[in-house]
Every structure is written in structure tokens, then in C-alpha cells.
């Protein structure tokens, strides 16, 4: 949900509560005000009648529909103006209505009269109706205003935010440029920008350290490995007994494995750092065919048959060496993890490269194999980086890679069009 919508909903929610309370307050205030005014009006009426009575011969004859006049003994205490509610028959409406009744005693020409009159009360239903109508009208106006203006305003206020988002999206380690934002008037954004800027600087420096470390490692480790491997080779050719030969053999194999891991990690680091530059249009079909040809002998030995459906002259844009690595690793995998006798199905067209091979049922989820050093058979000689390299190459080129195990077949599908 958009921030502005949340704000709007909250604001409107609060407005509803305020309008409710306000409405109730207005209702009571209006009611009491009306009662007060009505009372005063009635008093004025009574006063007018009293003045009129002074001019009349018989003051009692003024009595009419709503006016009651009673003569009280002259010595009785004067009744002060008072108001009371009463139920009375209302002619026009032809029903009993709540009425307001006002009474006061006057001295007219030395005689004491008590006069009272009543009038229909303004019904609280009417007041409620008025109040509710007004409130709803105001609320609707507010709603329209808020929805329209908030959208306009938010576009303006949030503009720097969207700009920042775009900047973050295009952030790239390769450019080695920390995030720098234009200054805004909003304090929160300033805080965010400051934080992001510091974070990006930190990220870049960390990244550089890691990158340098892996580069140095893969480079510096080569020489000691070479030394160790040379010494072992010399040892192997010196007079040794069988037990010693076993030990040396084990050390030798471990050393070889280390070499492979370092080499593969270095390759992965190079891919991740996007160090292979200079893509060119490559005849992928002939590359795949050549590669298949190179492995013919190996496949022959493992009694692996190849079913290929390679569409001629499929072109892709890729660094030549990367393309070679991709195909090589794919075939390598398909051969290595195949059964014997086994088969490989290879399909290539403009859209997709699909390679599948019979193989052992995976113990876990096959997508796990895409992770580094994850492999189906932990004891195998394979180091478990081949698929990572394949995946990294696909990622760089925006190809989607899918690895499934269906019908006892490992199948890797690479969508060549992104």
C-alpha cells in the first residue's frame, strides 16, 4: 500500500472520529441554544400580552388558544418566569407533541395575573438531521480535497525519495562510486541519504577488501601449492616403501584438489567481478558441436550415447572464453554424473539450450547443487563448483537457468533469450 494512501486513510479515520464528537457537541449546543432562544421568545410574547392587557377593560378576556390567563390573589407572591416541558395537542399536526411551556405573573392595573403560553418544541430529530447532513457534507468535501491534494503534494514531497530509489537501483560495485544524493529540505530524507551514503562507502571498501583478498589468495597460493606438488613429485620418485607411497599419494591428491578449488574460485571471482569484457557474436552451434567432439572419446569409454538436436548457426553474444567455459562445464557435468552406459540429450535452438542426462537420484533438492560446494555425492572427486560457474555465466548474461530432475534425468535448461 502506498504511503500516501496510508496517510489518507489514517487522516480520514481521525476525521470521522472528530466529526462524530463534534457533531454530538454541536447537537447539544444547538438544542440548548434553541431552547434558550425559544424561552426568550415566549417571555417576550408574554410581555407583549401583559402590555396589551393594561389597555383592556377586562384583562382576562385576552385569553385565547395558547394563552392561559389566571388571576391570582393580589397578595400572592409573584411567579418568576419559568419554562417547562409539556405534552399538548398540536392542532396542525393533529397529534400530541412535546411542547415548551412558559409562565410568568404580571401586575396589570394593580391586579395579579399569571400568564402562561406554550409552543411546539423544535424536535431533536430535526436537529440531528441537520447536524448529520452538515457534517457529512463537510466530510465529503474534506475527503475529495484530501485525496486530490495529498496526491499532488505527495508527488512533490516524495520526489527526492523516488530519485534516491533510482540511484540505489543503479548502484554497482564495478563503478566503484558511492551513493551521492542531492540535498533535500526533508529532514528524514536527509538522514536516509546520509545513512545510505555511508553504507555505500563502507560496502565498496568491504567489497574491495574481499575482492583483493580472493585475488591475492588465488594468486599467492599457487606458488606454495606448486612447491608442495613438486616436492611430492620428487618424493614419489625417491626410494620409498609402499606405506610411504600411500601417504605421499594422499598428500598429492589433496594438493591437486586444492589447486582445482583455487582455480575454480579464481574463475568465479573473475566472473563475479565481470572481468571478462569484450563480448562478441559467437556461433554457439559450432562451439557446442566442437565441444561434443572433444568429449567423444570420454563418452565412448563410459558408453554414453548422445542424442543431439542442434539447430545450425545459433548466434549468441558472449565473451568467447566464457562461452567455452559454459559449454565445457555443462558437458563435463553431464558426463561426470552420468550412468554407464548412459545417455545425454542435447538440444539447442535460438531460444533454449537444454542438456539432460541419466544419473543417480539426487538426495536433496536439486537447486541446492547450484550453490557452491554442494554436490550430490560428498565423496566424489568433483569439487562442486562447476554448476556455480555455469550459473554465474548465465546470471551475467541474464539467461535463466533451470535445473530439474524428472524421469530419472538431470535436466539443465538455459533460456537464451531474456
Amino acid at each position, binding site marked *: 500500500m502506498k504511503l500516501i494512501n496510508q496517510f489518507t486513510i489514517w487522516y480520514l479515520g481521525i476525521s470521522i472520529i472528530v466529526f462524530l464528537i463534534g457533531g454530538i457537541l454541536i447537537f447539544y449546543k444547538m438544542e440548548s441554544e434553541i431552547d434558550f432562544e425559544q424561552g426568550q421568545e415566549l417571555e417576550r410574547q408574554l410581555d407583549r400580552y401583559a402590555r396589551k392587557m393594561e389597555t383592556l377593560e377586562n384583562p382576562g378576556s385576552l385569553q385565547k388558544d395558547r394563552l392561559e390567563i389566571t388571576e391570582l390573589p393580589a397578595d400572592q407572591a409573584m411567579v418568576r418566569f419559568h419554562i417547562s416541558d409539556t405534552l399538548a395537542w398540536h392542532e396542525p399536526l393533529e397529534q400530541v407533541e412535546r411542547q415548551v411551556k412558559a409562565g410568568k405573573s404580571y401586575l396589570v392595573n394593580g391586579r395579579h395575573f399569571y400568564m402562561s403560553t406554550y409552543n411546539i418544541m423544535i424536535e431533536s430529530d430535526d436537529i440531528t438531521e441537520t447536524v448529520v447532513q452538515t457534517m457529512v457534507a463537510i466530510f465529503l468535501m474534506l475527503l475529495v480535497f484530501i485525496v486530490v491534494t495529498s496526491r499532488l503534494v505527495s508527488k512533490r514531497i516524495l520526489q527526492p525519495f523516488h530519485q534516491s530509489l533510482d540511484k540505489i537501483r543503479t548502484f554497482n560495485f564495478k563503478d566503484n562510486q558511492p551513493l551521492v544524493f542531492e540535498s533535500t529540505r526533508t529532514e528524514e530524507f536527509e538522514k536516509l541519504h546520509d545513512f545510505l551514503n555511508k553504507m555505500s562507502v563502507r560496502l565498496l571498501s568491504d567489497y574491495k577488501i574481499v575482492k583483493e583478498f580472493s585475488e591475492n589468495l588465488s594468486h599467492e597460493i599457487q606458488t606454495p601449492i606448486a612447491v608442495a*606438488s*613438486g616436492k611430492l*613429485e620428487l618424493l614419489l620418485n625417491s626410494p620409498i616403501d609402499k606405506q610411504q607411497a600411500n601417504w605421499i599419494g594422499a598428500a598429492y591428491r589433496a594438493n591437486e584438489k586444492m589447486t582445482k578449488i583455487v582455480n575454480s574460485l579464481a574463475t568465479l571471482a573473475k566472473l563475479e567481478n565481470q572481468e571478462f569484457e569484450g563480448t562478441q557474436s559467437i556461433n554457439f552451434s559450432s562451439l557446442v558441436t566442437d565441444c561434443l567432439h572433444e568429449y567423444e572419446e570420454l563418452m565412448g569409454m563410459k558408453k554414453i550415447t548422445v542424442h543431439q538436436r542442434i539447430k545450425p548457426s545459433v548466434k549468441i553474444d558472449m565473451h568467447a572464453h566464457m562461452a567455452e567455459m559454459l559449454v565445457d562445464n555443462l558437458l563435463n557435468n553431464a558426463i561426470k554424473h552420468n550412468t554407464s552406459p548412459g545417455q545425454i540429450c542435447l538440444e539447442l535452438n535460438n531460444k533454449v539450450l537444454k542438456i539432460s542426462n541419466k544419473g543417480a537420484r539426487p538426495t536433496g533438492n536439486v537447486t541446492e547443487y547450484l550453490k557452491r560446494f554442494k554436490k550430490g555425492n560428498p565423496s566424489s572427486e568433483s569439487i562442486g563448483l562447476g554448476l556455480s560457474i555455469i550459473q554465474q555465466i548465465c546470471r551475467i548474461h541474464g539467461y535463466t537457468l533451470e535445473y530439474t530432475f524428472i524421469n530419472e534425468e538431470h535436466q539443465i535448461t538455459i533460456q537464451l533469450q531474456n
Partner: protein
Amino acid sequence: MKILLIEDQLELSENITEFLSSVGVFCETCDNCFDAQDKILVNSYDSVVLDIMLPDGSGLNLIDLIKKNQANSNILIISAKNSLGDKIEGLELGADDYLTKPFHLAELHARLKALYRRNQLGGSDVLTFNEIQVNPENLQASINQTLLDLTKKEFDLLLFFMTNKDRVLGRQAIVQHLWGDYTDDLANFDFVYQHIKNLRKKICRAGARDYIETVYGIGYKFNTSAEK
């Protein structure tokens, strides 16, 4: 065969010298560009094994000097930098071969021998041992003048053994020799086993002694003193 080894890693240099002298290659060493220039100007070598990263500069700068002063010499670059750029540059400058560290000493030896045969001997060298004859030029091997029907890999393997007689060749060294650098993840030693099995079968069937023996857990060895 006499070579100059320019390598600043003393231990590595010792390994190479030790191995090469044990197979009858005379080895002179130096560990920087400056000394190397002296030696190149004064002596003559069949091959120069050159490390790229030296304390006083890049080994690539020496290639020109070697080409000028050692008309007959081969240049083999050894580098820890597994970079395609360096490899291409080195070969373009006139190096004959390129080997990435870490490498197997047997592989280095095989490469040096191959270069030596190709350049110094015009490829006409035929390796002979007892009843086995191997001709790298036309890729033919024969036992007692009977031609062996070998595949390319089997031939390479036999040549590798013949160059490194009486040396234990690790399976990984053989894998690297036969399939090169890029397939180094293809660690399936079954393939090596299969190739060796076929090669032995063919050699024995042609009436030769079974020179190739298994060194358990490590690899194989061409045993010159194999009994009949």
C-alpha cells in the same frame, strides 16, 4: 639438453632443477631479470623457462632479448597468473609455450622435450626404447617395426611415458597432460585407467613387455626394468 630457468621462487626453482637433472637435463638458474640478461647474453641454451613475475620486472620483457641472442632457443613461460591476456601476450611476443602454475614437473619436462624435438631436432627425432619406437612427427608408434593402432590420446600417453621413463606419473598429471587446463574439473580417473588399460593391452598384444605399471593410489610408471 641445456636450459635456463628464470624463476624467483627458490623452492620451486629447486624442484624443477632437481627433477630435470634427474632426467638428464642440464639446468642453470637465476632469480631476476638482471642476472638473466647476463646469462642470456653470454651462454647459449636449448630452452629458456621463464617466470613472468620477477622481482625486478616482467619476464615478458626478456622475450625480445632471448629471441635476439638465442636464435635456437625455445621459450616456455611459467606463470602463476592464470590469465588469458598474459598467455596471449606471451605467445605473441614469441614464446613457444605457456604453462600455468602449479604444474606437474613431468608435464614441464614433456613440454620442454616436445619443444626441443620440434625446434632443435626439426621434429625428426624418434624415441626408441628397446622394442618400442615412437615417432612424434607422424604420430606413429611401433613395436619391433610393427605399427601400433593407437588413438591420439593413447599415443600422447605413450609419448608422455617415454619422455618420463622411470618416473611416477600421477593420475592428475596424466589428466592434465591429455585434456589440458580447461578440463581440470574433469577429475574422473576412470578415463585415465581406461586409456592406460587399452594402451597396455595394445603394447602387450604387439609383443612388447608390459612396461607400464600401476603405482597404487598415485598413478603409473613406465618401468624400464620391467621383466618379461
